[in-house]
């Protein structure tokens, strides 16, 4: 909320003296800063306020991602000089803020003003990238390699978990045999993209059949019997909103109770 008082009111240096005086006075008060801007462009001001509030919420959630990641770095990289620890953790904190703002901006209308990048903001990737970069600057190469190896193994585990969830959802509809289960897992694993899982979260029923948006049919259909194929039906394409929707992963962070900052990193 502090940053709200810094919000300049558009038009506060234009117009008659009385108008400028009122706008300047309102801008000086945090509570009125946005309202004053409303006089000029209420929709834009409202969007900015929503983004700021949502970014604060995301910042709390993404801090949990950072805590887990710093714990892994500490486990793998061992003792680090105090100055290095502070630089790495600071890079993480900045990345959390950036990821929070990007995700909030995306939620309320696409992208940040002036940012031409239309890619979906994956908060975990933003934070990991910043930590990895800082780590590479602060820590000997072999320890960085060990950390990267751990991250790669975790990514593999998460991919496996997502694939299992997709196949379990199919099984609930198609009564797969254990052999089919294995075969579909292998096929999906070879062609996996994270968006498949995100899309599978939006499965829904149409005329009594569960629809799997974005499911790679070529990985599934060859392993099914004819009656199962008929039961599966068409999958439909995922829309852009589904592809860019990270809310499934973000929502899960709500269930994690943060243990608080590890002073080893921040003292």
């Amino acid at each position, binding site marked *: 909320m502090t940053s709200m008082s810094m919000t300049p009111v558009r038009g506060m240096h234009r117009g008659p003296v009385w108008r400028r005086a009122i706008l300047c006075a309102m801008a000086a008060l945090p509570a009125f800063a946005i309202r004053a801007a409303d006089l000029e462009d209420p929709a834009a001001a409202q969007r900015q306020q929503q983004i700021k509030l949502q970014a604060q919420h995301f910042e709390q959630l993404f801090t949990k991602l950072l805590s*887990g990641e710093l714990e892994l770095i500490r486990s793998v990289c061992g003792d680090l000089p105090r100055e290095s620890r502070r630089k790495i953790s600071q890079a993480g904190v900045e990345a959390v803020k950036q990821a929070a703002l990007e995700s909030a901006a995306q939620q309320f209308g696409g992208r940040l003003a002036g940012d031409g990048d239309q890619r979906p903001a994956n908060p975990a990737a933003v934070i990991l990238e910043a930590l990895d970069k800082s780590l590479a600057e602060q820590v000997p190469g072999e320890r960085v390699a060990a950390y990267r190896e751990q991250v790669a193994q975790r990514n593999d585990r998460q991919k496996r978990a997502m694939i299992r969830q997709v196949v379990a959802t199919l099984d609930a509809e198609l009564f797969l045999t254990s052999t089919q289960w294995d075969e579909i897992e292998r096929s999906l694993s070879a062609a996996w993209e994270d968006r498949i899982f995100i899309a599978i*979260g939006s499965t829904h029923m149409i005329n009594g059949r569960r629809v799997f948006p974005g499911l790679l049919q070529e990985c599934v259909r060859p392993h099914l019997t004819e009656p199962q194929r008929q039961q599966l039906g068409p999958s439909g394409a995922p829309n852009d909103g589904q592809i860019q929707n990270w809310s499934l992963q973000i929502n899960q962070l709500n269930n994690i109770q943060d243990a608080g900052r590890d002073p080893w990193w921040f003292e």
Partner: protein
Amino acid sequence: MTDMTGKRNVTTSFLLLLMLLTMPAEGMLRGADDTVVDAAAARKSDQGQQQQRIVLDQQMNGIFLGGGDIAQSRQQFLDRRLLQVAALADVCGLMEAQRRKFETAARLDTARTFDGIEAVRQKYAGRTVDLQNPAGQAEWQRFQQDAMAVRTRLQETGGPESLLEKVIAQILDDGQRADWRREVELRRRHQWQNVVDTGMSQFDTALGLTTAQHEAVEKLLMDKPLRVNDAKVRLHGGHVTPYICNICKYALSKLDQQQLKALVNDRQWKTLGTFVEQGRAFAAHLKQQKMIVEEGPAGAGDR
């Protein structure tokens, strides 16, 4: 004199301004507008009352898989049971006579299930509840319980009460029975691995587990599998991940806590301990919703 008039004018202007600012917005519309406002308010009130009345027939129809078409819903229900028969045939190599018996059992299961559903439909036929009075609220609650039972029956592919499940052991010969038991165990392992992997993903994120730690916790969970009623979990549509995570946390709470604690450091235990507590807190809900089956070893036909 001019000064006095000026002062009076300023005071009058100030009072007028104050009156304008403090005047309620609704008070500004009066006179000829009254009719319009009153009609709009009455319409709004009517709409509100209509929103408080619920036609139960319509609600019940919406629950059926076929969007209200009971014949289509019935066929889809039967088709899913026949998929189970097809799996039996694939795994056990059924003879034609055995296949026919299983298909008959599937049809009887379908008939019995839809007889039960029809009874519930008849119970609420032509009924409308008014949520503005306590009797209507109570009936709405009863309806919701019955509707949930209907949805569960439609979602379940088998279960110990199903005729198809009951006759599997009788119809199969010894070799086929052994094959099917093995298949049931493999399917169950797949389903449990899904629960563990989904839950462990969250633990990985929150605790920063190394691969060695992850594998050690995973092994503890895989060695003590719970029986999960997948159909109950799937009642929540596509958004089942939080429920699966809760089941995994419940499984954590059932592990030897000293053994679990020894696998992580003190900082990680602070967070892992909260997951264990969440798991304990969810226990009653999971059991009440029958997402967890806490009974002895089930028969050969269990899913």
